[in-house]
């Protein structure tokens, strides 16, 4: 029974990683950059919804929507101010800038909300499900998280396959210059990608903090890095890959926590990243990229 409950916890944590990883994978696929600040957008989203429910007494749903709006604006602002001028710069310069943005967000949060961890009250007010004479308890948070992840993935897949903007995104990720020649506005497409990624980050932040209710300025950085691991694991640029990678990573993390060592769990997760990158750098569902000279 512990095995089953661990598995469920793993899938639930993995779903959060998957939602974050979707943001990473879309941005990486289209703008070809590692948005290091993505994890901190999660933290901002969680703080916004925390403040909305605690100080303004707004209902949970409204607070989540508010967090999504704030994060979307934040994501677009970050992209426009910090990343857009560096479109043609080296990846080293872009990455250092992204790290700067990440630190900027963390320190602004530190100044606004302080370093003391806030206890995040769960946004999900539903009873948990008990099975097998209370031997297996599935929390409402787990169910909602997994459902949210599935809904988001299906919606995103449909969006990128069917809608005009989604097609533009795929075209830009395929070949930026050719897409521009076809009349696609590359800058708008990239901004929309950041907007979607950041809105997802807000949802992920609320779900993450509902399950693990400690909120502080550094809350987002570790899940952010792990979610990037998940995106690489599943194959960067691929939407189902992000979901698969996220869930596998969540399961690996929970299992190594309960069966190997709590302290070494993070080390094991990162070891997975290193092994994946060495054995199959394109990830499970990634496309093979050949380098042109």
């Amino acid at each position, binding site marked *: 029974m512990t095995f089953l409950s661990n598995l469920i916890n793993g899938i639930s944590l993995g779903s959060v990683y998957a939602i974050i990883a979707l943001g990473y994978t879309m941005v990486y696929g289209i703008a070809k950059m590692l948005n290091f600040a993505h994890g901190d957008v999660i933290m901002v989203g969680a703080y916004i919804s925390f403040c909305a429910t605690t100080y303004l007494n707004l209902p949970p749903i409204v607070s989540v929507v508010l967090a999504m709006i704030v994060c979307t604006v934040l994501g677009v602002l970050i992209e426009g101010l910090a990343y857009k001028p560096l479109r*043609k*710069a080296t990846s080293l*310069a872009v990455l250092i800038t992204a790290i700067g943005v990440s630190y*900027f967000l963390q*320190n602004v949060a530190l*100044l606004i909300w302080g370093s003391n961890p806030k206890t995040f009250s769960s946004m999900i007010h539903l009873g948990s499900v008990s099975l097998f004479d209370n031997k297996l308890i599935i929390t409402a948070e787990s169910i909602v998280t997994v459902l949210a992840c599935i809904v988001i993935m299906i919606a995103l897949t449909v969006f990128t396959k069917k809608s005009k903007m989604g097609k533009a995104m795929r075209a830009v990720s395929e070949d930026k210059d050719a897409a521009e020649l076809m009349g696609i506005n590359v800058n708008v497409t990239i901004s929309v990608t950041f907007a979607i990624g950041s809105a997802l980050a807000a949802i992920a932040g609320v779900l993450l903090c509902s399950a693990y209710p400690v909120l502080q300025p550094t809350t987002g950085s570790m899940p952010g890095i792990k979610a990037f691991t998940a995106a690489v694991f599943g194959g960067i640029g691929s939407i189902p890959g992000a979901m698969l990678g996220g869930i596998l990573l969540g399961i690996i993390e929970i299992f190594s926590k309960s069966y190997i060592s709590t302290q*070494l769990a*993070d080390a094991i997760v*990162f070891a997975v*990243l290193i092994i994946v990158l060495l054995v199959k750098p394109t990830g499970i569902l990634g496309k093979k990229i050949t380098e042109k000279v």
Partner: protein
Amino acid sequence: MNKLKNLNKFTFTNIQSYGIVLLAFIIIFPLQKAGLLGNQISGLLVPTCTYVVMAISLSLTVGFLGELSLGHAGFMSVGAFSGVVCAACLQNSIASDPLRLLIAIIVGGFFAGVAGLVIGIPVIRLRGDYLAIVTLAFGEIIKNIMNCLYVGFDKNGIHFSMTSAEALGLIDAKPILNGPNGAQAITKISTFTSGIILIVVALFIVLNLVNSKTGRAVTAIRDNRIAAESVGIGVTKYKLTAFIISAVIAGMAGALYAMNFSTIKPTKFDFNTSILILVFVVLGGMKNIPGVMIATIVLYAMPELLRGFASYRMLIYAIVLILVMLATNSSGAKQFFEKISSKIKKDENADVQNGGVSNG
């Protein structure tokens, strides 16, 4: 003619770099001996030296190798804890503090070099963002391992454990490394003089490496990997060499750093420390060693001295980091600078008339 000019440039960098160290030593050493420095400044001397060495080491990876290492604090951690263990083991057999410190620093550098080799072999095969994220991952793995590493020393020799201090089975001795609590009761043997000597050693290694055949190969690989490969430069070999040397220097700095405090925890060497060093390197000008040294001294020592400023320190670092990257890399800023430089060049050419000034 061109060769002479290049030579002069290198000599100039060398003179500048060693000059800064010498100047710092000449100013601070007599003050320290005379007891004119307050406790706060005296306490900052060794850490500042350590961070200067760390910045020089990271400058080799980021500036000359052109790869972003986000786990540099990991090498520092390996060097620090192996150095501490070594010094503690030799406590009774070697009475001379400077000699023990020297051995500890060498051991720290050695173990960090081994870590550099183990990490470097997989890491060097990757490029760009992937390489950065893997060094980050390795930094976290090192921190996690150090967090559950227990080492003790008694009359039977060294004991290791990954579970608890009790599992060491020590007789009449306390553990040297105590898991998450880190190293406790370290004998402080680091001095300002040893810090200055280590900076000179690091400078000597890095500056000579950069001006050597290996250094030119590394620069060629950074500028264009495929072109370098096609003229027969072994990419892996040279990259790995530079990476390991960088790790060794970081390890030596770590040993020096740890021996300046009575206790030190593994969490000290986390991602934030790596980023702090990266900020120094980027703001100092990446491969501009004298610049990196000055940036480290200013950015590390100043905020420590201005306490009230401390809470805004990282925020200001972050903003400066973004602005520097935007100013030096964005296409708009580039055009702006090109306009200015071409204007200056035009004026110079008009003055020289022969056109003797090449693009400098």
